[in-house]
């Protein structure tokens, strides 16, 4: 039984640091706790002294992330085995708040063994020091999972302390095994290279300790094979050898050996070197992990930068922290000017209050991690003061305790304009089709009045419909902007093969409405000329000539249709439909002028059409 005499006890009690004294064996009974310790943990001396430490830990109420009793136990055992202080680094502890509850805090803990003359640990002095928690538990959890296998905290898990010992000599192997175990390592002793390789592949050891050249083991060859395999390419390898000359060492390093240890070796040096290699391996893995993360972040950054949609991030004060290239283009403002400015600068005045409420409310309802929301259809403000419609969605993330909102925007002006145009076009198309059908209907009616005989009706009707159709085609080909007079004449009168028809005049473009009706007029005139007029005779002739005249400052097409060489013209006794069409369709509402002259030498028709949109 250990006893502290009064003087020592007073010193212990009054020490400015928090101490807990434990019996090393068998169950870490709490022998003493000084005043500072009790103040730190909020515990009462009578509740803990004389009780095993781990029993006291179990007493405390359960919390979702319990203090790691396993880490503590491992640390205490290490301290005992090594006879050296074990630094647990920063770990969590629970401080009782005196009202039955507790708060989770962090402290640094070092466990120091007190040895007797034989070197056996009899006491453990556990020193603790509360440290402000620099990171909240959530971020700590995130950090741990992100830093994949990092050795940044020193509480090693058992897997990290497993060493494969490859040594063919039984005595040496046993000695090494014993040595390493005493220092708290788990060991996998093997006698040959094959077994060593198998052990390294399957156990994820922390380190390989191998003889360089003993029966069944060529250390350098083993090293090369391990380095060539992905699984063990980064495994720390230490070679034991009697040769330590420069040549031997260089050969070793070239093979991929990390550390070259001479035989015979000093125990403490061996252990020290192993510890250093293990720490180095951990740091390397840590850096590799960080480089990977940096690469991922760089990729993400370039994705955001090249995205077609505008991406804008704002902090909790709604100041812009990210403004990608698409945003620069959308708002007409470069990123440098936008960063640090309030998002409000890009929102029209009248929407700012509502928007602020929106983001605020959104920020509050998000729990932890990311929450998404659609802001729906809104209006934004370009740098030049022009408002435009946008579609936006917002997300919220918490990174390192900081809240970040990210808004993704799409400019809807083009889409809205396109939708509106489509609506108009469909409406117009519908109207035109109905109108055209009505015209065809009227045409059928009128034709039927003139041609009672079905065959003649069909012929005439078809002819007229075709005339309408080809005029339409001409217009469609020109995008309904207008039709070229020459093309219209050729279409309606099937020129090119008929030498009796002569054209003369400048290029003129007719407006769509005129083109359609003029086409039909030309058809009627031509149909009449073929049946009764100049084109009914081989020696007949049709002259088509036109000019552009200015009448009262407006341009007009003055077009003449002159037949000659045909049979004598007869003035019709009844104005049938064709004649009415010729005389009226260009004049009724279209403000053209048509004069039909049934001159005996041949029919003449003079047509005057305004070429610019007229005033009604």
């Amino acid at each position, binding site marked *: 039984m250990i006893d502290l005499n009064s003087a020592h006890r007073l010193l212990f009690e009054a020490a400015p640091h928090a101490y807990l004294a434990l019996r090393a064996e068998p169950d870490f009974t709490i022998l003493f706790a000084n005043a500072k310790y009790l103040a730190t943990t909020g515990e009462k001396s009578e509740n803990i002294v004389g009780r095993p430490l781990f029993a006291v830990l179990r007493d405390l109420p359960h919390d979702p992330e319990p203090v790691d009793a396993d880490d503590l136990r491992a640390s205490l055992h290490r301290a005992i085995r090594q006879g050296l202080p074990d630094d647990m680094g920063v770990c969590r502890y629970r401080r009782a708040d005196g009202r039955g509850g507790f708060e989770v805090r962090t402290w640094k803990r070092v466990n120091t063994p007190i040895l007797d003359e034989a070197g056996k640990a009899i006491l453990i002095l556990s020193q603790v020091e509360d440290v402000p928690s620099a990171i909240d538990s959530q971020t700590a959890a995130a950090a741990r999972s992100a830093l994949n296998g990092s050795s940044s905290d020193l509480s090693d898990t058992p897997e990290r302390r497993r060493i494969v010992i490859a040594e063919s000599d039984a005595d040496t192997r046993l000695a090494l095994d014993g040595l390493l175990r005493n220092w708290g390592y788990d060991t996998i002793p093997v006698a040959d290279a094959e077994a060593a390789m198998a052990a390294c592949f399957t156990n994820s050891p922390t380190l390989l300790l191998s003889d360089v050249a003993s029966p069944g083991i060529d250390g350098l060859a083993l090293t090369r094979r391990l380095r060539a395999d992905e699984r063990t390419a980064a495994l720390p390898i230490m070679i034991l050898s009697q040769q330590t000359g420069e040549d031997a060492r260089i050969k070793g390093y070239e093979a991929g050996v990390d550390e070259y240890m001479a035989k015979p070796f000093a125990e403490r040096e061996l252990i020290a070197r192993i510890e250093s290699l293990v720490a180095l391996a951990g740091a390397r893995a840590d850096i590799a992990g960080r480089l990977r993360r940096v690469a991922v972040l760089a990729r993400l950054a370039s994705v955001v930068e090249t995205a077609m949609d505008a991406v804008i991030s704002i902090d909790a004060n709604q100041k812009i922290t990210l403004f990608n290239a698409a945003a620069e283009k959308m708002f007409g403002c470069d990123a440098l000017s936008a960063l640090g400015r309030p998002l409000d600068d890009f929102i029209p005045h009248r929407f700012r209050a509502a928007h602020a409420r929106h983001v605020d409310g959104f920020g509050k309802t998000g729990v932890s991690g990311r929450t998404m929301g659609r802001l729906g259809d809104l209006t934004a403000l370009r740098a030049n003061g022009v408002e435009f419609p946008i579609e936006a969605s917002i997300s919220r993330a918490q990174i390192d305790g900081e809240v970040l909102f990210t808004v993704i925007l799409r400019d809807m002006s083009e889409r809205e304009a396109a939708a509106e145009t489509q609506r108009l076009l469909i*409406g117009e198309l*519908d*109207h*035109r*089709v*109905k*109108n055209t*059908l*009505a*015209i*065809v*209907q*009227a*045409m059928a*009616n*009128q034709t039927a*009045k003139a041609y009672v005989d079905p065959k003649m009706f069909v012929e005439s009707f078809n002819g007229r419909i075709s005339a309408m159709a080809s005029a339409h085609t001409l217009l469609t080909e020109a995008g309904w902007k207008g039709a070229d007079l020459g093309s219209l004449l050729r279409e309606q009168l099937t020129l090119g093969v008929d030498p009796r028809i002569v054209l003369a005049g400048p290029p003129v473009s007719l407006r769509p409405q005129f083109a359609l*009706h003029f086409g039909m007029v030309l058809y009627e005139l031509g149909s009449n000329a073929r049946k009764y007029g100049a084109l009914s005779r081989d020696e007949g002739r049709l002259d088509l000539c036109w000019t552009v005249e200015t009448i009262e400052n407006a341009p007009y097409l003055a077009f003449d249709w002159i037949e000659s060489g045909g049979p004598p013209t007869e003035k019709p006794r009844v104005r049938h*439909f064709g004649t*009415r*069409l010729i005389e*009226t*369709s260009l004049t*009724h*509402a*279209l*403000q053209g002028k048509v004069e039909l002259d049934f001159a005996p030498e041949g029919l003449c028709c003079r047509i005057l059409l305004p070429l610019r949109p007229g005033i*009604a």
Partner: protein
Amino acid sequence: MPRILVIEDEFLLAAHIGGILEDDGFDVIGPVGTLAEAVKLAKDEDLNGALLDVNIVGGRVDDVADILARRGVPFVFVTGYGRDHLPLNFRDAFIVNKPFDDKNLLARVRGFSDQPPRAS
């Protein structure tokens, strides 16, 4: 004979409508296809009814409809557009859709004499 004002800017249709009405014993005033002419006739002529195309040369037929309504002349829109293209004040007026059935048009025109004068 009842006098019916025909306002239609597409000649073929105007002729067609004119023909139907005349064959049925109506007197056709017009047909005219420009807003100026239509307004003049709507104001000055003695009329028993009117057929109005909604879009004519020079603009929409809204003013003509107003004049006719004030004078108490019954009318019908003959149009290829839907109801939402009608003049605002006359959204629930009678329509004859293009292309129309001759009988349907005639029935509407005959019905003018039964209709009470419409106020705008």
